[in-house]
């Protein structure tokens, strides 16, 4: 479980996150929504211990600020929006890099690490791609390789920054289904920043709406997604369609 209390982040002179408190239960999937610049990415980076923050962030009761980089990396796997994927690296090598928090600083990976990497690749249907260079993969395959690396990290918390932004409609759904399966199989706690409000509402258990670094709504999609709120938050004109417990947010030209 992730507990954020009075978290503030300043980047230079700008206060990007202001006094934010929230919690995420173990095994829960929370979607972060908000316009560009609302602080979604910064919040994820703060949870992963990559930016200085004031206040407290704890995962399973352990403070992020008080843990070493390696300890944080064993608790939290982060998939950035645009992961660095060196073209010549093979899928196997790339996924093995995910084992870094479990490998002593100057050591080579052990058999256990190779087994874990193989398990992650198999889980994501990449076993036959093991020796393919990353540069030869399609967008969807690359996305799975990145997820495999995060899974190989064997951290209980998975942070995803816009996991579907580079994918077409079908691949977006497949990727999110996959994340959901992984979450259930491995009891992962997932926090994902998302652009697509409808998809976020359908996959995440709960939505956290951010504006200018503050939480403006927190709850299940059917409760928090309303036409007024979306138009206020994004400055967009939308129509909301509710069907079988799902909420669809449709952009509408005025």
């Amino acid at each position, binding site marked *: 479980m992730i507990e954020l209390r009075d978290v503030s982040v300043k980047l230079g002179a700008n206060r990007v996150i202001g006094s934010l408190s929230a919690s995420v239960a173990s095994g829960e999937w929370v979607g972060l929504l908000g316009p560009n610049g609302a602080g979604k990415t910064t919040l994820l*980076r703060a949870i*992963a*211990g*990559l930016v200085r923050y004031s206040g407290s962030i704890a995962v399973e009761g352990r403070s992020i600020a008080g843990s*070493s*980089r*390696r*300890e*944080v*990396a*064993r608790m*939290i*796997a*982060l998939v*950035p929006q645009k*992961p*660095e994927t*060196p*073209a*010549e*690296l*093979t899928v*196997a*090598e790339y*996924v*093995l*890099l*995910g084992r*870094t*928090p479990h*490998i002593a*600083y*100057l*050591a*080579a*990976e052990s058999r256990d690490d*190779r087994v874990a*990497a*193989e398990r992650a*690749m198999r889980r994501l249907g990449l076993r036959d791609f*093991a020796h393919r260079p990353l540069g030869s993969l399609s967008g969807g395959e690359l996305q799975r390789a990145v997820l495999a690396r995060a899974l190989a*990290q064997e951290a209980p918390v998975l942070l995803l920054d816009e996991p579907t932004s580079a994918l077409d409609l079908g691949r977006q759904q497949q990727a999110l289904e996959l994340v959901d399966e992984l979450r259930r199989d491995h009891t992962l706690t997932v926090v994902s920043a998302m652009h697509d409000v409808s998809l976020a509402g359908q996959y995440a258990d709960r939505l956290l709406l951010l504006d200018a670094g503050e939480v403006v709504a927190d709850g299940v999609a059917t409760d928090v997604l309303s036409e007024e709120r979306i138009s206020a938050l994004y400055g967009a004109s939308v129509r909301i369609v509710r069907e079988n417990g799902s909420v669809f947010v449709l952009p509408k030209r005025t």
Partner: protein
Amino acid sequence: MTEIRARGLPGGWGVAMLAVLVGSLLLGLAIGPVSTGVWPIASSALSHLGLGIHSRLGATDSDIVWQLRAPRVLLAALVGGMLAIAGSAYQGSFRNPLVDPYLLGTAAGAGLGATLAITESLPSGLLPVAAFVGASVAVALAYVLGRTVGGVHSTATLILAGVTVTAFMTAVQTFVQQRHQATLQEVYSFILGGFSSATWHDVWISAPYIGASSVVILLHRRVLDVLSLGDEEASSLGIDVRRTRLIIVVAATVGTAAAVSVSGLIAFVGIIVPHTVRLLVSTSYRAIVPLALVLGGAFLVLTDILARTIMSPAELPIGVVTAFFGAPFFAVVLRTTRRLG
């Protein structure tokens, strides 16, 4: 089912490049105004190793080979290996394929330090220290300048910063050199670079620094692959990026300074050799780092042979030979890097 593993260092390439190194060492020992042939030298070398093999080298030849040529050849191997492994370390830690000890200003800084040590008549034991101080100042300047202008991962910016620092350091070095007429000859021949005056003393004073620096870089070869994912992702994988980069850069700088202090300024080895390994073998630092060390040694031994035989009995400065091959090679690397974006 094959097991999942990183390609690492392909054994075949390791053996092949070691063979090239041993071959070039033997060639370096055998070639010179006095012809001795390779096999007598091999037998003499093996007898020195106490393998119970009788040396077939005469006493005079033995002196020529072991007192004149051997330190020269070994020093070239040490310096070449060091410049190449330092090049790969800088390239990996700055995530920039075009940096090398020379282009970053490290070598020029070491040259300035060494020049000051000579002109100020410091004890010769302090020359490597002075070279290291100069080299560190240069790297720090290039890094800070590159970062303030446009980020160190921008290939062009860091190179331009390095060029700027090199130009400045070289200007100061030339000024100091010209102000001290008495040591002009000594400084000039030092800066030109080369192994013509190499002694066993040079080998013994540089070997510990070069050895220690190489070991530190070799130990970081997997970490260098993690760094290729960028600072943010390497951090999220549990690497303390700033500390790691500092360790690697300090190691490379110490080794470079030691190499420069015994050989002068020899350009392009740190670019040519790691890139040759990248093109031939693998882009993983697990392969690049150890193979650059071995191939760099062989490369500089062979270059030194060229430098002393092409215009024999006159010698070409070895820096001229490496630049002659290195500059076109650099142009090719620059082109491919640009194409990759």
